[in-house]
């Protein structure tokens, strides 16, 4: 049975990849992922904004209170070298490359035009096999039009594309007025793959202290309907690879995504919940299902349930909504 797939021009031994998460900050975990059968590893995102903030914070604290008191002209030893740029991240890429054989896909979240480009170059030089752009912004500026926001996305992809020859995946949010158009423009800008979808983390309220606080919620199974739908719609309409991410936990989830057209599937919450060895379990279940249902390869099933190939293409569209809404309306007593 052939579980292999292709993604970003790379042949992968299976379609199961751990999504970008802090787990992959540790080389030991990356090794365990490889041992568990991960087809590749997406490194956690390099956040330019965080690097800038850390650099500013460090400078502030190293200079705060200095040259104020004759007895204490400074409060810290003068650091010769500080890794305030992406050095640690680049080192992680290099270490991962020499430690494991599976492809290493870096992830980048820039903050400035220069940042996207410079870091992309450095990631390529560090030896990453591919790059995933994690474009994540919550717009609170009401004077900024949707067109401008979209143009910014496209611009980022174009700029990065122009500076690196690395295979390029773009992780998108579903919150566009016309996602299909946006996806098309992103592909035209140079993306080799679309990763659907990014999750926005929203804060929660601490009622005791009346304060907002970051509260990470793991993805839930129902969330995979969104990538399922959109990969199903976009499959073959865009000459691009698809990665499904969000709410995936089981082999069944993986199968569904492959069937709508995903090249690969990515999971993070499920790995946090079940452990890194969960990758192996899903792969085994996937193989078992395929065997039981007489599938010989991933390629065979890929896209089989996409809008293009499925029995009822309208199921991906508005009629599906009407059907669902009318069928499940609660009956009043």
């Amino acid at each position: 049975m052939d579980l292999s797939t292709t993604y970003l021009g790379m042949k992968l031994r299976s379609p199961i990849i751990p999504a970008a998460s802090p787990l992959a900050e540790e080389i030991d975990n990356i090794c365990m992922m490889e041992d568990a059968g991960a087809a590749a590893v997406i490194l956690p995102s390099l956040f330019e904004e965080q690097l800038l903030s850390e650099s500013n914070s460090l400078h502030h604290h190293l200079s705060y209170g200095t040259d104020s008191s004759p007895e204490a002209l400074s409060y810290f030893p003068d650091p010769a070298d500080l890794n305030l740029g992406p050095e640690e991240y680049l080192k992680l890429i290099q270490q991962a490359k020499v430690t494991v054989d599976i492809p290493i896909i870096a992830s980048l979240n820039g903050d400035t035009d220069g940042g996207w480009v410079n870091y992309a170059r450095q990631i390529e030089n560090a030896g990453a096999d591919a790059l995933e752009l994690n474009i994540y912004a919550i717009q609170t500026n009401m004077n900024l039009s949707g067109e401008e926001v979209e143009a910014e996305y496209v611009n980022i992809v174009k700029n990065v594309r122009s500076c690196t020859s690395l295979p390029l995946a773009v992780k998108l949010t579903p919150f566009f007025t016309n996602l299909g158009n946006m996806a098309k423009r992103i592909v035209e800008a140079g993306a080799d793959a679309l990763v659907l979808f990014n999750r926005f983390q929203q804060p929660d309220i601490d009622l005791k202290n009346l304060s907002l606080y970051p509260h990470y919620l793991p993805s839930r199974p129902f969330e995979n309907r969104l990538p399922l739908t959109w990969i199903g719609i976009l499959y073959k309409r865009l000459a691009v690879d698809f990665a499904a991410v969000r709410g995936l936990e089981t082999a069944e989830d993986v199968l569904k995504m492959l069937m709508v057209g995903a090249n690969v599937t990515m999971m993070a919450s499920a790995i946090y919940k079940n452990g890194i060895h969960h990758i192996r379990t899903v792969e085994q279940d996937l193989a078992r299902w395929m065997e039981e249902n007489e599938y010989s390869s991933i390629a065979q099933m890929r896209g089989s349930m996409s809008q293009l190939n499925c029995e009822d293409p309208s199921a991906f569209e508005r009629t599906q909504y009407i059907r669902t809404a009318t069928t499940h309306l609660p009956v009043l007593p």
Partner: protein
Amino acid sequence: MKQEKYVILDANEAVADVAYRLNEIISIYPITPSSPMAEWADTWSARKRENLWGTVPEVVEMQSEGGAAGALHGALQTGALSTTFTASQGLLLMLPNLLKIVGELTPTVLHIAARTVATHALSIFGDHSDVMAARFTGCSMLAAASVQEAADMAVIAHVFSLESRIPVLHFFDGFRTSHEVNKIHTVNDDSLRQLISAEKIKEHRQRGLTPEHPVLRGTAQNPDVFFQAREAANMYYENAPEIAQQVMAKFAELTGRDYRIFEYYGHAEAERVIVIMGSAAVTVQETVKLLLEQDEKVGVVLVRLYRPFAVKRFVAALPSTVKKIAVLDRTKESGSSGEPLYLDCVAALHEAGKTFFETEVVGGRYGLSSKEFTPAMVKAVFENLTAEIPKKHFTIGIHDDISGSSLDFDPEFSIESAAVFRAVFYGLGSDGTVGANKNTIKIIGEKTNNFVQGYFVYDSKKSGSITISHLRFGKQQIRAPYLIEKSNYVGCHQAAFLEQRDVLETIISGGTFLLNTHYDVEKVWHSLPRITQEQLIRKKLSFYVIDAEKISKQAGMGRRINTIMQVCFFATCGILPREEAIEAIKDSIHKTYGNKGHSVVDKNIKAVEMTLAHLHEISVPEKVTSCLERRNAVPEGAPDFVRNVLGRIIAGKGESLPVSALPADGTFPTNTARWEKRNISSEVPVWDPEVCIQCGKCSMVCPHGVIRAKVYDEYFLQKSPENFLSTEVREKSWKGKKYTLQISLEDCTGCGICVDVCPAKNKSVTRLKAINMRPSLSLREQEVENWNFFLSLPEMDRREIDADKIPQQQLQQPLFEFSGACSGCGETPYIKLATQLFGDRMVVANATGCSSIYGANLPTTPYSQNSEGRGPAWSNSLFEDNAEFGLGFRISLDQKKIMAEKLLAQLTQKVGEKIVSAIMKVDQSNEAGIYEQRQNVEILKETLRKINEAETDKLLELADNLLRKSVWIIGGDGWAYDIGFGGLDHVLASGRNVNILVLDTEVYSNTGGQTSKATPTGAVAKFSAGGKESPKKDLGLIAMSYANVYVASVAMGANDTHTLRTFIEAEAYDGPSLIIAYSHCIAHGINMTTAMQNQKKLVNSGQWQLYSYHPDRFAEGINPLRMVSKPAQQSLEEYFHLENRFKMLQKSDPETAKRLVRKSEKVLKERRAFYEHLASRNFTDMKQDN
């Protein structure tokens, strides 16, 4: 001769550079002003810089200077090339070892930034009292007079010591030389190799102890031979001056810089000569140069090698024509027949015989504690020598209106050359002015052929401190070790200073004045005080303004205006072409901030590029229009001493105070900080009574005592100011009374901690709390009036307050308020709390450190008094002896109580049994009892006064000792864990009733963040640049081992209730109590506003445990140890990420950072398990039946 490059640095760095290259072991202990030498050495060692022989010297920090000297002695005895750096009390602690090192003829050099030894007061500044106290050790003493000389003498000292076998004290003036930035040559490695004799090093090593060639050193000797053995070393001393001069000659061959052990400069037939050493010698030389031009027959002998004192060479250095000599000492030896150098000179001339038989010699003192010594004073000293009978044992630089010792001098006399450009800058410590000026010096020194000099003056506050930078530039080497008296340029980086001091005092006619101000071009003239306008017109100044804060905000630099003001200076001073200067500034930004990330560089570059467009020249009008006068330093109504003495110091005019203005024994009044209204915060907390829950947390954490609460009867509000706020009190037992939370706006530092801890949120707008930060300017008038009214409201009767409950306890009046500690200080809330609880019966022994500086650095003290005039009595002895000092208080107070009780018993018949019985029976363990006893004692004293007999007078003297006294021993972790630990341990073991408060900041905060044994694993601190490996010492556990010591660990931000309970229990316990109080600190690299939240995370991560160990629980059959904090509930890494001291390591050495986190976790887990084991033991068998 190989030409050496010029470098720009201060003497500390220059000397450290030499010492580092020429040694293998450097044992150190931080002490101002020598600490930077040790810090440089540690920094280089951490960076693996190699010494002259290709090895990386090991820098080891010890627990005290005594320890550093011991380690030095040991390293020398085993054949290593070793050195140390120190000053002041540190040198005194090294004396016993120095005697040994000298006695064993062991070559070494101690580099000393000479500093005042504490007498009536501590002073961190420079004079020769420390080195003079080391004369008797037999060390050679080599004095350097300038930054260049310090660099050179450091070399000469090492070579000389190896050649002569006599240890050398190489000293230069603390701050004046140690901290002066100058353009100098350093000696290159090749020259060092040529100077240092490999043979001598070999001999030194061969003398090292080794079992392969065993010898015995350090014997005990008896009367039969000790004396002879002491004399056996004489030849080494006889040879030493010649050796020193030979070394200097060889040094001159290699470098071109020629030195003499006694150097004469002046008229060949001089009749009047000054003998002097240290930086002041340069001032004398430069003044003599001018006087020679005026045909004065004067000269100066600069003493470099002071010990061994080479009599013949000294005499030979003097011109035979000399008639009168003034020997100037930078020290005072009370009761002596003269100061040391004077006595040496007198003895030398006496021994010289007839040649100088008729030469008159007078001695004088100058420059104690860095007191300015100027050319005008030199002139006065020479003029004194023209008198028929010159004044002897004179002082110069002060006005001694008591003993008449001082010489008058003409303050207008100046020798400043017109060829030297002189600039004075006034700034705040926080605005980066000093840093900018240091950069400017580097740029000018490196980019032009100018010589440069920078010297920086700081005030004694840790928050809102004012800095004054003195910069000189010129084509000749700058030799002017005194402050600028006539400036070409003044930069005032904070417009508010114009209202406080005469900023333009030094500027000459036609000079340039640069002002940073919020006012725009049209309005700026009208914003100036009258005197400033007047000087601008009269002196025909060029006047430039800029709104630097505006630019710094736009560039994202917050309040750091350093780069902007630097650009303005270059644009207006004309030293470099503008474009060239700006390129140089940009270049220096890359160098300075390059390792802090590109965004920091980008912001500074952006600021540079924005600046010139905002710099404006103001056309100075012809007439003064302002009516604005400078503010008085202290408000009207202040006591005379505050107004006339402390007020002068606050105004920056302390120099002009005569001797008679100052107490002879160092005793000062308390209750004075309340008069020093600093108005340093642009934002202050404002109370919202509608939201307030009256919990008292804000006032409890306020580091500066500016938030107070009062509960009072409503009728007191009859005359309240219009905007005075009050509300119904929430405490049920006080129903019907009014409650007010009032802020002292003029004393607030704006730290915002109060707002951060406030738990009450506005239910409609949750970003608002019961107190909120608001701009202070518009509130000032109103809040000053409100504060004054608030003070007039009565204090709550202490007997009615349940001190166990924070909301009630916080009504107790703090007797520690408005300290100049860092804004948001983590130590002061604990001291304030102690004074609220016990201040009216408190005697404080305070170790040297932050708490002694914000507690008692002139001009004012935050220790205050209640309306009855009671309050903490405070004293500081030393850094190392504080526990013993406090124990002395206890023993003395107890003894006086015993004496009083005995007399009372003896006089029962006379004073009446009733009052005696009342006094002896009263229980003073609570406020009611204390109140009752005070009444009793007043009655007793009244009775005694009426009787008026010898015996009753004796009791009258002692009667106040019948009142309970609470002895507090306060200090930081440097004292408690390191230098004072031996004494602290002994006091704990004494069983006496003292309360020891350790303000644990986990570093030496006062001297700039050096590692102590309280520093936790993984923290970066000075001397732990690579992260501290060893775990934090468990002081509490050590104290618990005595079983009869009350021990508690607290962190106010994590658990204020436990903190309060601990203070009450500790004070009530009749035995030694130790409170280890976690104190966040500026040296942690944290957001000081949210520092109390850090304390929560500190405890939640298990990094700090809260517990109390109460020996009285034994008797109740209860385990004395009670854990208050829970086991770790959040990751240590998460806590580490909050503080720069840990985070920095993640950025400099991530691997080590990770390893040390794991190591810390393991240690903390084990420590917790051990504590839980101790706390779980069963003590029911110990229960004592009453």
